[in-house]
C-alpha cells in the first residue's frame, strides 16, 4: 500500500514538473513525506573537519534542504583517520532509520578498497543524490624559479632535474596517484613533500617551501585573486568555467587518464526504509535544483558532472567511476 502511495505521488510530481513555474517543490516534497518521519533532527554526517571544502558543501546543502522541507538538519563532523573513522561509522554503525545521511566524497572508494580490509564496502552505502564535483588543480607560485612556466615546462624541468621540484602531496590519496601517473608517463621525478591536506600545501607554496601545490579551487581562490599563485592544469575532462585559460592535464599531455576529481554525493546506509530513502533523495535532489544553491556552489569552484547530474541510475554511474579507480589500484599494484 505504501508503494502505491509513493508511486502516485511521484507520478503527480512528474506530471506537474513540465508545467514549470506552476509546480511547487515544497508541496511536492511534502507529499512524499512518510508518516512519523522525521520526529527528531536528521544528521548530515561529514567525515572531514568543519570549515573544509566537504564541510562547506554539506552545510550549504543542509541549509537549503532545511528550508525546503522544514525538517531540522544537523551537520555533524565525525573526523579522524583522514575520513576512515567517519566512513566506517556510516558503513557499519549508523542506524539505517533515515536519520543519518552521509555527505561523502569519492575518497570513500579508496578507503573502502584499500583500507577497510573487508570490513565494509562502499556498496554498504546507497547513493541518493549527486551534489557536485571538484577537480584537482596544480598550482605554482608567482615567485621563484618556476614562475611563469606552463605545466609542460614544469614536467620537463622535473625530467631534467629529477628530485628537485618539490610538490605538496597528501599521502595515500589522489594527490599521490596523479604524480605516479605523470612520473610513469614522462620519466620525470618530483620530490614529494607530505602534508595533512591540500590547504596546508598551498600555504607552503606561498611561503616558498614547496614549488608546486595541489588542491581545489576553493583552497586557493583567495590567493589567486591576490596574485600569489598561478594555476597550471586541472585533472578533469574539460576546462573549468572559472579558469578558462587553464588547460586540462589530458590536453597538455594528449592523454585521457588524468582524471582526478572529488565526487560529492549524499548516501544513506543500506537497508534504510524505502519511503524514507525516497523522501530524502527527493529532498536533496530538489535542493540541488535551486539556482541559489547552484550559484553558491559555483563560487566554490565546483563543477557539475553532466553524466551524474542527469543520471538515471546514480549508483550504477558512481560504481562505474569507482571501477575505474579500482583498475588504477590494480594496475599500480596497490590492490591485488
Amino acid at each position, binding site marked *: 500500500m505504501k508503494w502505491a502511495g509513493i508511486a502516485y505521488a511521484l507520478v503527480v510530481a512528474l506530471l506537474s514538473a513540465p508545467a514549470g513555474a506552476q509546480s511547487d517543490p515544497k508541496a511536492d516534497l511534502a507529499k512524499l513525506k512518510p508518516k512519523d518521519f522525521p*520526529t*527528531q*533532527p536528521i*544528521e548530515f554526517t561529514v567525515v572531514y573537519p568543519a570549515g573544509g571544502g566537504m564541510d562547506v558543501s554539506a552545510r550549504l546543502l543542509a541549509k537549503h534542504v532545511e528550508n525546503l522541507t522544514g525538517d531540522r538538519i*544537523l551537520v*555533524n563532523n565525525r573526523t579522524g583517520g583522514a575520513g576512515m573513522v567517519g566512513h566506517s561509522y556510516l558503513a557499519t554503525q549508523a542506524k539505517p532509520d533515515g536519520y543519518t545521511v552521509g555527505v561523502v566524497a569519492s575518497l570513500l572508494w579508496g578507503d573502502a578498497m584499500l583500507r577497510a580490509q573487508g570490513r565494509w564496502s562502499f556498496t554498504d552505502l546507497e547513493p541518493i543524490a549527486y551534489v557536485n564535483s571538484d577537480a584537482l588543480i596544480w598550482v605554482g607560485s608567482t615567485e621563484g624559479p618556476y614562475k611563469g612556466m606552463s605545466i609542460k615546462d614544469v614536467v620537463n624541468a622535473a625530467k631534467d632535474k629529477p628530485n628537485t621540484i618539490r610538490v605538496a602531496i597528501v599521502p595515500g590519496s589522489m594527490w599521490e596517484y596523479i604524480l605516479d601517473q605523470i612520473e610513469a608517463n614522462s620519466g620525470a621525478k618530483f620530490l614529494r613533500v607530505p602534508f595533512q591536506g591540500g590547504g596546508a600545501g598551498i600555504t607552503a607554496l606561498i611561503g616558498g617551501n614547496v614549488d608546486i601545490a595541489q588542491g581545489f579551487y576553493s583552497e586557493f581562490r583567495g590567493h589567486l585573486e591576490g596574485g600569489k599563485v598561478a594555476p597550471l592544469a586541472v585533472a578533469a575532462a574539460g576546462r573549468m568555467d572559472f579558469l578558462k585559460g587553464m588547460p586540462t592535464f589530458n590536453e597538455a599531455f594528449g592523454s585521457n587518464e588524468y582524471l582526478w576529481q572529488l565526487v560529492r554525493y549524499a548516501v544513506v546506509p543500506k537497508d534504510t526504509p524505502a519511503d524514507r530513502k525516497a523522501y530524502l533523495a527527493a529532498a536533496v535532489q530538489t535542493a540541488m535544483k535551486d539556482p541559489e544553491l547552484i550559484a553558491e556552489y559555483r563560487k566554490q569552484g565546483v563543477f557539475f558532472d553532466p553524466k551524474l547530474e542527469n543520471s538515471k541510475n546514480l549508483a550504477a554511474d558512481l560504481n562505474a567511476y569507482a571501477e575505474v579507480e579500482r583498475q588504477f589500484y590494480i594496475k599500480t599494484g596497490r590492490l591485488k
Partner: protein
Amino acid sequence: MFERALNVFWVVLGATSAVYAWSLGMIGPAGPESGLFPFIASVIVASAGVVLLLRPATLAHAPDFPRGGGLWRVLGVILGLIVMAAGMPYLGFSVTSFITMIILLRTVDRSSWLSAVTLAFLSTVSVFWLFGSMLGMALPRGPWGW
C-alpha cells in the same frame, strides 16, 4: 610495592612498544620512517622504568590507596562511567545518564532515594535541554526516541 609494579609495567610497555615500532621501519630513503620516533620514545620509557626499578623507593609518603569506604566510592564512580559509556549507544543519553546519576548518588554519596531521583532527573533534563536546544547538539536517543 605498587611502585615496583608500575616500574615493571613501564619496562614491559617500553620493550613491547619498541619491538612493534621496530617492525614499522626505522629509517627509509626519505628520512625517518613510521617507527623511528615511537621506537626512541619506547626505549626512553623502558630505560626510565629500569632506572626507577634500580633506585631505592623515593616517594615522599607511601601511596595511600583507598580502602573500605573510599574504595567503594571510587569504584562507584568508575562503575557509573562504565554504565554511561556502555549504555549510551543503546539506551540513549537521557536514560543512561539518569541511571548513572542514580548510581553515583546512591553509592558514592548515600543520599536518600528521593533526593537521588530528584537530582538525577533534574540534571539529566537540564543537560539535555542545555546541549540539545541551546547549543543544538544531538545527544544520542534511545529506541524510544528520546
